[in-house]
């Protein structure tokens, strides 16, 4: 293995990524309005029928309830949404005005959705209602 070639390759990689940044590519992404979030949730899990959604005030995440009592969690990852499907209510917590949805996956993480205190409590209550 040629260490000079490897070093030059790594330098070129960072230069190309820096050019993408300088060109303003991939900026200003948002999940969008309720209908778009619903469409994303349907696309994410075929057969999912959304009925309600908690959408982050900054449009960076959404938690969507389906009519089967199932859920789709969406979070902005770069300019696209990455999601997780839950057949039953996942672990939810209301913290101030934020709804915290725990995926149980360290690398996907806990997703924080800024929806205001009342909405956060309402959604977190679904977990308690489901386990009552």
């Amino acid at each position, binding site marked *: *293995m040629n260490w000079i070639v*490897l070093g030059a*390759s*790594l330098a*070129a*990689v*960072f230069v*190309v*990524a*820096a*050019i*993408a*940044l300088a*060109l*303003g*590519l*991939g*900026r200003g*992404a948002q999940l969008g309005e309720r209908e778009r979030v619903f469409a994303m949730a349907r*696309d994410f899990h*075929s*057969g999912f029928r959304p009925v309600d959604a908690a959408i982050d005030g900054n449009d960076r995440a959404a938690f969507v309830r389906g009519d089967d009592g199932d859920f789709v969690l969406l*979070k902005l*990852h*770069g*300019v*696209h949404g*990455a*999601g*997780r499907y839950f057949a039953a209510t996942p672990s939810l917590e209301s913290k101030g005005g934020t709804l915290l949805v725990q995926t149980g996956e360290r*690398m*996907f*993480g806990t997703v924080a959705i800024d929806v205001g205190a009342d909405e956060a409590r309402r959604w977190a209550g679904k977990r308690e209602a489901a386990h009552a």
Partner: protein
Amino acid sequence: MPEMLPDPVQYAIPAFIILILVEMLIARRVDASRYEPKDTLTSLLLGTGSTVAGALAGGAVVALAVWLSQFRLFEIGYVWWAWIAVFLLDDLAYYVFHRLAHRVRWFWASHVIHHSSQHYNLSTALRQTWTGFFSLSFAFSLPIVLIGFPVPMLLFASGVNLIYQFWIHTEAVGRMPRWFEAVFNTPSHHRVHHATNPRYLDRNYAGMLIIWDRMFGTYERERDDDRPRYGIIKNLGSFNLLWAATHEWIGMAKDVLTIPGWRNKLGYLFGPPGWSHDGSRDTSDTIKARWRDGAESE
């Protein structure tokens, strides 16, 4: 050791970089969301890592191929028809490997890296595996050596195949002329392959020639009313390089170690991606079936 032909991939790398920059300029004008700097960085670093892994393991693969060649059935030299035959056979071997790479979790664990970007651009083409040697993906080409084609000729053909597959990773090209789309793999065909739309899952495995998909029933055309959504069923949601390179291996190891029963363990190793002993996860077949049921009930 036979005298090797030049590695065409080495000569193509400057063109790869120039074309990525050109595609970025097009994206800036047409659709700035086609690129995302962190995604590009991840793809290119995975590509660099793949080159390092290839350099470390390549010698062993070549040595094995050369050793196997002593058992060849025929003595095929560098005649003109052998070049055509080796390109066709190598492309067919790629089709077989690629189909299994999507249908058998052991091979998918290595190949998933290439699909883990939610973008579809030329940098995605360079997002390549670090663990191809470990998953034994090179084994699919070895029968060509046993037939009797010279090892350097096969390596050269594989290199050209790899270069060809670079340019098809783009949204900047719509459709090629009809005759070209009928024979060759194109950006349109390969967008289908990278899509997670149920209709497109596990379709268009071709390397250079789409004829294999047409012959073996795995062809699907790109539709304007179902635009491809790229990535994997459970997108990573992380730009972590090591996670992208190893997540499926880690998931597979956890399943094998924690789920009891040899039949289950073998299922987690060699079943289709998403297979689970209790049916709690989605495979591409269950996703397609659910999608078809939904379409019929509407």
